[in-house]
Structures are given as C-alpha cells and as structure tokens.
C-alpha cells in the first residue's frame, strides 16, 4: 500500500513485551496511574494478581498477590478514583473486591455464582456513569447478577433462565445507558449467540437477538451516555455494531457486521477518548483497529411510520498480528490516549502505543 496512506493511518507500536510465568486472563490499567494489573492462573492452579508499573520501556512488578482460585476477570468500574479497588471474578464463582494497598483480605466478598465468573463489568465509579456504583457478573451457571458493593451477600438484580430451560453459558456482560441516576442497562452475551439487553430501571428484558455464534465480548461505546452503540464479537470471527439510539418495535436495533479474521474475536474495547474508534483482538493473535462512521441520517421511518435505526459503516484503520496465540484481553488506558495493554495466551502481556488517533 502506498507509503503516504501508511503515514496517515494510525500505527500500532509494541512498546513493551513482558513474559509471564502464568496464564493471563485479564489485564487492566489502574485509573489515574501508569500502573496495570494482570490477572490469571498459575500452573499450580492458584490465582495471581500482579501489579506492574510502566517505567520507560519496561514493566516493573510492584506487587504479586496469590489467591486460592484462578482469577478470570476484573474491573475498576465501580470504585472511586480515590480508592481504586479492584473487583475480580474467579473460577469458583466468587466476586471479590480488593484494596490493592492491603490485599490480604478482600473488602467485599461473595460467592455469587455456582461456576466460573466469565465476565465482570462495573459502572458508577471513576466518574463514569451516573447513579449507584454497581458490578455485574456473568457466569457459566447461566446467571447474570448485579451487585452493589454496599449490600452484602445478595445481588441487587439477578437474571437467570426460567426453570427447565437449558442454562446457557454467559460469556460476557457490559453496562450501558447510565446517563442519569435512574437509567441503566446490562447487556449479556451467551455461548449460543444470544444477546440480551436488560433494563435495570424497569427490570425487564428490553431486547434480545441472536447472532448465531457464541458471543465472546460485548461493549457499549460509552457507559455513561444515552446508549449509542453496542459492539458484539463472536466466535467465528464476525462482529456486529448495533446502533442503540433507535429501537424499532419489531426489528430492534439496526446493525452492521464485519468479519475481521477467520478466528474468534475474543475482545472488543472502545477508545475511552473517542467512542467511534474501537479495537478487536483475535484468536490468531491479531488486533484490528476500527472506526464506525455514522450514516447521513441515523433513523428513518418505516412504512408504518415507526422509527427505525440506520446502521453506519465500518472502516479498518489498522491491523497487526502480535502473536500466534489468541489475545484474550485488551484494555485502553483511560488517561493516555492511544496507550493500550493486551494479554495473550502465549503468556505475554504487551503494552502498545497506537499513534495518530488524534487525526482521525
């Protein structure tokens, strides 16, 4: 491709590569810092939380905490900017909140699920999202539960299949629509391709669809605005972008889909500084940087006169292949635009710099 074009486009630079001695499942930037967390499973079957600090071109371990159960996922979403407590979900179905300064005993702990917690998300903290701080967990036991760290032992909302109906493995959960104190939705993706949107204000199922293949990751472009877009990635390498502004009574939300690669898309993360740019991480160790372009008109009237959304288009800004193993986790730094961390199954965590994001 032409050199000129290449210069205009964002480039993905692998800034630091850090080999780990365990399998990393999730990595997260600690808000308002240059530190990051790696969560995973050690060879002897215990859980590991590692705190790294970025020093120039290397990562320095600040702290390593070992816990009895492998840790699958974590979030800072429901904590304040001052406290920065890490909420984690482990293989045993436990939800724990850790004070990283004193990690011996969790600040909050609950056996939330019967089986592994696959996914966790938080809202209401970090100045992101109005309303109460809440954590949502999705588990292999088929349930999605919403927790308030101020309420011990019991979830504030529980969404599970009706008795007798087969339990689907919930792979991913995400908060959204938290633009004022009342409104809030949870989106959950399941192994059979179901995507369900639960409205926490009305405590109802607002929308559901099926994308035919297991849903690996869902994320709203921003949690704290009137829900705008939702990206859902799937097992077979496709992802769907739903325009969440206009819900048609029968057709639901308009969407556009794109195939990034032949392998599973493990993760999608929106750039915190620009909701229309997001990165997907693939099973073949590749990363794709996308931009969503809105159509000239985002909604139109159908023949019955009800509003229906119009999906926009997607353009690939950049793609790189970093590894031969799947990249299972991805996180943008909330503070530094373009700084990004990803963990792959080759037991490596990489700090990436994505350049020229300002010029898009």
């Amino acid at each position, binding site marked *: 491709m032409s050199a000129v074009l290449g210069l205009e486009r964002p*480039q993905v630079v692998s800034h630091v590569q850090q080999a780990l001695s365990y399998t990393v499942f999730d990595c997260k930037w600690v808000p308002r810092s240059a530190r990051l967390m790696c969560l995973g499973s050690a060879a002897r079957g215990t859980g590991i939380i590692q705190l790294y600090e970025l020093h120039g071109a290397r990562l320095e371990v600040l702290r390593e905490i070992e816990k009895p159960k492998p840790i699958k996922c974590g979030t800072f979403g429901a904590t304040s900017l001052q406290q920065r407590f890490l909420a984690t979900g482990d293989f045993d179905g436990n939800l724990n909140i850790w004070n990283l300064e004193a990690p011996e005993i969790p600040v909050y702990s609950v056996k939330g699920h019967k089986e592994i917690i696959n996914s966790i998300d938080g809202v209401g903290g970090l*100045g992101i999202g109005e309303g109460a701080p809440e954590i949502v967990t999705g588990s292999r036991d088929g349930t999605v539960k919403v927790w308030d760290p101020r309420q011990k032992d019991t979830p504030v909302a529980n969404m599970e299949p*009706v008795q007798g109906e087969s339990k689907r493995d919930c792979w991913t959960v995400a908060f959204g629509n938290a633009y004022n104190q009342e409104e809030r939705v949870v989106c959950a993706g399941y192994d059979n391709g179901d995507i369900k949107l639960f409205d926490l204000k009305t405590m109802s199922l607002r929308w559901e669809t099926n994308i035919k293949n297991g849903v690996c990751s869902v994320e709203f472009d921003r949690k704290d605005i009137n829900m705008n877009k939702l990206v859902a990635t799937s097992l077979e390498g496709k992802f769907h972008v739903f325009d969440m502004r206009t819900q048609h009574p029968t057709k639901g939300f308009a969407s556009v889909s794109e195939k990034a690669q032949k392998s599973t898309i493990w993760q999608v993360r929106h750039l915190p500084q620009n909701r229309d740019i997001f990165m997907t991480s693939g099973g073949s160790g590749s990363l794709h940087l996308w931009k969503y372009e809105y159509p000239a008109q985002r909604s139109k009237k159908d023949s019955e006169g009800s509003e229906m959304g119009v999906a926009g288009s997607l353009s690939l800004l950049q793609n790189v292949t970093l590894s031969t193993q799947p990249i299972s986790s991805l996180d943008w730094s909330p503070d530094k635009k373009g700084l990004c961390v990803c963990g792959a199954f080759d037991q490596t965590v990489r700090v990436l710099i994505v350049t020229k994001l300002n010029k898009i």
Partner: protein
Amino acid sequence: MLKHKGDAHPGRCISARPRQALPSPLSPDPRPEPSCACAAWATAGRPRLRCGQGRVRVPETARPRAVMGDESVPYFLGEGTTKTYQIPISHLDYKFIEKCTDVKHLEKILRVLRSGEEGCYPELTLACEKRIECLDPRSRALRKDKPAATASDFTAEEWQAINSELMSWLSEMNEDDKKSQLLRTDTPNERPDNLPPIRCSSSCPPTNQNKNLQNKQRSKKNIPRDYSEWDKFDVEKECSKIDEDCEESNSKARFFCRPSLPIIEKKIDTTGMTKREKIFIATREKEKGNEAFATGDYVEAVTYYTRSLSVIPTAAVYNNKAQAEIKLQDWDNALQDCEKVLDMEPGNIKALMRRATVHNHLQNYQAAIEDLNEVLSAEPENSMAKKSLLEIEEKLKGLKPVSEPQGKGKKILIEEIEDSESGEGREENTEERERRGGDKSCGAAAAARAAAGEPAMGNAHRKSHGKGKAQQDRDAHKHKDSAESGGKKGASKKKSEKHLSDHEGEVNGYLRSDEKSESAEAEEISTPHGEGSQSAGGGSSTSLPPAAAKLKSEGNELFKSGQFGEAVLKYSEAIEYVTGLGEQSPDDLSILYSNRAACYLKEGNCSDCIQDCNRALELQPFSLKPLLRRAMANESMERYRQAYIDYKTVLQIDSSIQAANDSANRITKTLIDQDGPSWREKLPPIPVVPAAAQLHRWDGGSLTSENKPSTTDINREEELQMNCEEAAEKFKRLKNEGNDFVKMGEYEEAAHKYSECMKLNTEECTVYTNRALCYLKLYKYEEAKRDCDHVLQIEDSNIKAFYRRALAHKGLQNYQASADDFNKVLVIDPNVVEAQKELEEVTQLLHLDSSAGDGSQQAHGKKITIQEVSDPAERGEGPLAAAEGAEEAEPKAVPRRSSQKLRVSEPPNAYDFGQIINALNASKDKAACADLLTTTDPKTLPVLLSNKLEGEILLLFIQSLEHCIAGKDPGLAYQHLFYLSKAKRFKVVLALLSKNEKEEVQHLFDLLTESQSDQYSLEDLESLKKVYEL
C-alpha cells in the same frame, strides 16, 4: 518458449499440473459465492479436458510478452481454470486485471494468486492488489497480516516524539501519584452521602423498627427473575402504545412520551475531588460533547459541554458550546458563550468568527463586521472571514435606505405621550408602561430596519431571528447606536468594499462549499425558483457581468411566466456571453446551466436537461438543484438507476428534502420490481459527498426554508403522480416534521410544514389545530382564529380548537368571544385547569374593559390605531422561548392590566354579570364573589341573573354571604337572599340542592338570626326561610 520465459522472469516459474475436469470438492472457501456476472461467465466457459493434458497456460504478462507474440493466443484458447474459483486461467493476466472492474472477481483472482496454487507471481499479485485498491480501497482482500510497527516504520523525529510523549506522561503520572497519595489522607472517605441509594431498597426507611419490613422486601426482590418474567414485558405493545400516543399529534404529549429525550443532569457534583480528577472529568464530558456534536446531536452536545463547564470552565469548551448553539440557532446563548471565550482569551479567532456569525444572524451587522475585521487583522489570509465580511457588507448595503424607521419611531413616541396622558388615572401603571413603550420603539426600529432590508435581501434572512425578546431589544439598542453613525461609517465602508470586491470572484469561486448556508442562499436567490425578488438579489450577490445578469433575470422572468422555450434562449445567450469572457467564477455558470436545465425539464427535453445538469455539476459538484433536476430527468427517461443515485446523493447533502426522499423510495420499488432483490448490486456506486457539502438536518434551519420554493414546486408536479397511499405517508411525515419543529420552538417552520400538510389533506383537523398553536406562538391571532374556525366547521366539539380560538380571541382583545370559547371548553371538559384560569383572567379583562371603556372611550380608540402601527414591532420581537402554552400566548397588553388588583365594580348588564359569575364559579373565589355582591344592588339581582341561576352559583352566593358578608353586614346578606329568591329558576335550583348544601343555607340563616339587623325582623327571616324550603 516456456523455459525461456521462466528464465526471463524467475519469479514466475510454474509447475506443470494436469488440469482437473471438476473443481476440487474440498474448496477452501465452503460458503457459496454471491452470484456475479463474471463468475457466471467463468463457469459457463469451463473448458473441456481436450487439450488441457499436460499443457500449462502461463499467465500472460502484457508488455514483456508482446515482443514474443504470445498475445496472439486468444482467450478462448486459454482453456483451464483455477482450482478454487474456476476462474479462466487467462484472467490471471495484467491486461485483464487492468480492465476488470468487478471487485469481487478481482478479489478471487487475488486469492488464487496469493494461494500460490497456480504458481507464484509476486508482481502480478501486486498489480492485482493495486487494481483492487484503486477500485475499492476498503476491500477486505487487501487486509494482510502485519507485524506491529517498529521504529523503522517511523521517521526518527516521529519515533522520538512518540517516546518522549509517553515519557512525559509517565513522569507526570508518577508525580501525580505521590501527590495524590498525600492528598488521600486528607480526604479520608469518599462522599457516601452523595451516592444514590442501593437499587430496589430505596423505598425502605432506614429505621430499626422497620427491619422486618426491610428484610421482607429484600427477600422479595431476591426471588430470581427468570426469563419468562422478563418476557412478560411486551416490548411491541409498549412501543405501539407510545406510537399511538404520538399519533395523537398533541405535540406536548409527544414531547413527553418520546423516550429519546433523556434527562441528563446539567451539573456534576465535584465535592471532594482533586484538581486532577476534575480535569479528568471535565475532559471526559468535553469528549462526550464533541462526539455528540460530530453525530449531529447538538442538544446533547450542549448538555455535555455544560457539564464539563460545571466542573472546570475553559475557553475551548465555551467555544465548542457556542458552535453547537449556533447549529441549534440559539443565538442568545451562543453570543454569551463567545463573549465568555473572549473574556478568557481575548482575540480567540474561532470565538470571533462565531460571534460574527451570531451577530450576522441577529442582523447586528456592524458588530459582525467589527469581529470579522479583528479576525482579519490577526489573520489577514483568513478566507472565511473575508467571505463573510463581504456578504455582510452586501447585506448592509441593502439596508442603506433607513429613513422610514425614523418616521415610525416618531409615531411610537406619540404613543408614549398618549400613554402617560391616559395613564394619569392609574399612576401605578405609567412607569411600567413607559418602559414598555421604550421597548417597543426599539423593537419597532429593529423590525422596521429589517423590513426595509427585506426587499433587497430577498428571501434570504427573514427567519427565526432572536429567540428571546431581551436579545432582540439589546440588538435594537445596538442598531440605534449604529444608525446614528451609520451614514459616516457607511461611506468609509464603501471604499473598503470596493477594494474587497476585487477578491469577490475568487472568494465566491473557491469558498462556496465551505460555508454552507450563506453560499447556498446566494445561489437560491438567483435561481428561477426563488420566488420574487430574485432579480434584485441575483444582481447583487453574484459577480455576473451586467449583460449576463440581465439576460439571466430576463430568463428567470420568462421561466416564471411559463415561457420555457424563450427562457432557454435567454439562458443560452447568457451562457455564451459568460463563457465567451473566458475566466469566470464557475458557480455562476453552474447556476445558468442549472436554470437552463430546469427549462428543459419543464419542456420535457430530458436529455438536454441531463447534459446541462452534468455541466453544472462539473462546475459545482454536489450542488443540490442540478442533482435534483438530473434525477427527475433520469427518472422520466426511465433511467431509474441513475435517478436513484442522484436522489441518494441529494439526500446525503440535505436529508430533509422530502421530494428526493419520496422519489428515492418510489424508485427503490421500481428497481426491486425490475431487478429483483439483488437490485442494489446492479447500481453504480453512489458518490460519497464530502462532509463540507453535507447539510445535516439541524444546521440548515434557514436553508431548508430556502429550499422550500423548489421543493413545493416539485411537490406539485409529483402530486399528480403520487397515489393516495404515498400522499398519506407524506402527509404523516410532514406533520411529524411540523411537530418536531414545534418542539424545537421553530413555530414559523412548523406552520410552514403544516400548511404543506393541508395541501395534501384538508380534512385532518389536528394539522389545523397544530398550525393554530404555531400562529398563537407567533402572535398571529387572526390566522390562528381562522384555523380554529375551520376545524370547528368540521368538528364542532374539538376542544383544542375552542381553547386555541379562545386564546386567539384574547390576543385580539376580543375578550367576550374569548370567554365564550373558554366556557365551551369547560362545557366539554370541566377539568381543564388552564381553561379555567384563562377564563378567569379573560373575565377580569372583560370586566375592566367594559368598566373602563365608557370613561375613556376616545383615548381607547386612539390607542388601538397606534398599536396597529407598533404591531410589526411586536412581531419583530419574535416568539418567546416557549414551554407552556397558556401564559406565553398572552398578548402584551394583558399583563400590564392584570397586574392590577381586580376591582369589582357593578356590572352593567346581565351578560357581563354572567361572565364574572362564571369566572368566579370556576375558581370558587368566595371573597371576590362577596365583593361582587357588595357592589351589586340586591334589587338588580334577579335581572342580572336572568335565567342563568344554577345550583353552583347559588351555593357560591350562599357561601360568600355566609363567610364574608353576613358577619359584616347582615342586612345586605338578607337583602341578597331575599332578591335571590325572586330570581328565575330559583325554585328549580333550590329543589336540586343536596342535603349538605341545604345545611349550608340553614347555617347562613342561623347566622343571620344571631346577628340582628334593623333591615329585617325575625319574622322576615322566618318567611324567607320558608321560601328557601327550610
């Protein structure tokens, strides 16, 4: 020969492979390929095995092989196809690839080439990639696995920059960390009080006694919610319910039930946050605002900017907010925000430019010019500023004859004097009145100036200026100042204008597409559809040489009178003349072509029309009219695909053009009929309109109205073709647009939309009532009344129509009729609180009018005439920002009077008395009723009540007598009771009183018995009691 080739191009060596008759069953891509022309042909031409044995076709390379004469081998001899897609081997060729335009086919070729199954040809692969890239830069086939970028992918400086940027951020972060750690001890624990309650438990009172209850509620909510429970919520039903509500077309109700108008807090609580955190949050909110702005959600953008500002006010955010407000045409706030930016950063170019835009729209041209001059002094090359400056000066020139307003101003002075004279009786009012007079005179001056400017400006800028009255007043003040110095300044400006007009052609030529609205206006004025005044506007706003301009305006005239043939001749002459001159601004020429195209279209000469449109578009890409005309011509020539493309392009530029929308839909149907479900694939690509040429729905408030003439024109033509269904659909759409405008407070626009609706369907009452509402908001009471009358002719009990007509009557100071209508509203639905309130008010006014009317008949008469003069001033003030109907629709004169305390004087006749009673009854105001009764002579009561006595009124009388009068003046109470019993219908009403009500009467009599008076004896009371059946 083969060997030779192989030597020459070592990259292209090939292994001989026997061809297979059938494709491999294990094709790597199991999914069926979408059918396309090329693929079909490829399979059709599948060769037989005949001469394939052992023979290998080597992909031909055009140039090097030409020497060797290999080209003489024709394609059909190239038997053999690729394994995977059965592409004829001959397609793996430079020549073919260069000519092929089917991206899908090329992608397949590329895949074959990359796979290496037919051999390895790096150069050919590269050529194929290039070809695909040039056809479709986004093609997925072009995506390749790439390693992460490294230092070698950047220049040394870039690499340095990337690293140093990260380093500085790191050090900043580390520093900050240490600081915040120190700070953290100061701010021990959050702000738990500010946190919202835990979900579901918010209703539980947090007292110990309620522990059980709390637990219960908790256990209740812990019952697992299963899917079936979720499913009980019938989304469809809910949505349709919402839709139904919307269909009621009550714009207010629509407003409330629309789910997409989120309530977002305007402020962020930042207590206990460190400076860093505040910056973090402010930036975040700003980013949200920017994103919303980019998507066209300007209201949302303003909200988020406001939130950002509530955390940390910065100039940049104010500046962005101003821009969003400009898009929303909220000039008042935009001006304020620009001024804030300039307070913080004097000389901020963007803020100056934006303030100039605002001033321009507020018709505050001098101020706009000053701002632009400041911009130009800082950036002499700023072409945008130059262009706007020229345009504004052009407008100012049109405003020159300002002698008239002075005359009007004088008349208003008279009013002031008159007011103070007649106001002597009511001292408390005069001061207020004078101030109002002053306001009016300012408003009048502004309006008069605007009116004077109008003919010259054409239909350009008479639109939605000023949302608030205060704004307009300020504006007017400035006008006054500038009017004084106008003469002098104008003279000096003229010089600079002349100097600048040298640049005009150039500026017009190159900057058209930059600033949308202004440039578009200029064009519209000079096109034949711009009704009236376009000759004047056209002459002044374009740089056509006078001869050509004359020809053009003649052409316009002819076009208007329907002589299209002659108009074509004129336009052709003009075009010839202009092209003969050589270098010319392309847009003028484009307009001429576009106009001629319009003539051809009218004549039915579609091919010439298309030609002219093409020329116009070459000169001026993405201009609306030629595109529309070409689309229509194509459509009538049954070239639906091209027409569809053009309509779609038009819609990209301005999505609000109804005609294009409708036509595109219609053509879609035709194309589906014609080409089946895959019709889209047969379309040529739709050109992507650059963002600069796009008009989003919001930013073209003024522009959409400018487009109206043409759209309506098109509409008229299309109405004939449209079947009823489409008309209904269009009607609905127009109505909804109108409703949307109402919501935005754009009443003029809304009224326009409704008027268009009426063209389609005169039976639909809601449109009329809605338009009436708009007219009310615009103070056009006559029109509002007319609409309501129309509705009431069709539907004689339309409550909205009655209510709005009542308001209109009130505005026209026809209080009697107004009161009548309010009464009718209350008859239909007695629970309309607004109507009750209004009725009360109107009755008061009515009363005042009639009581004051006799005394100052003459003065009154005079005043009306004068008010008519100042009427335009009132209109010029524009609609006040609207939220609640009733209060705001009041005419100016009303609050002045109603501020006065109601003094009930003796009503002169039965009618007035009835009105007052109705009003009092509506509010159950006993004190006021008592006042009324004290002023009324009891003897006249039967006459005044005539046959209007009712249970409620009787009760009211009894109550007010009991509570207010009996204590003070039992004699009067007795008198009233006595004469009340003489009124008509008394017996009937009495018989209908309930037991409680009877008790009230009894109570009153008891009271009267207790408090003796010389006006009645106990016997009298007893006998009266009998009359009252006690």
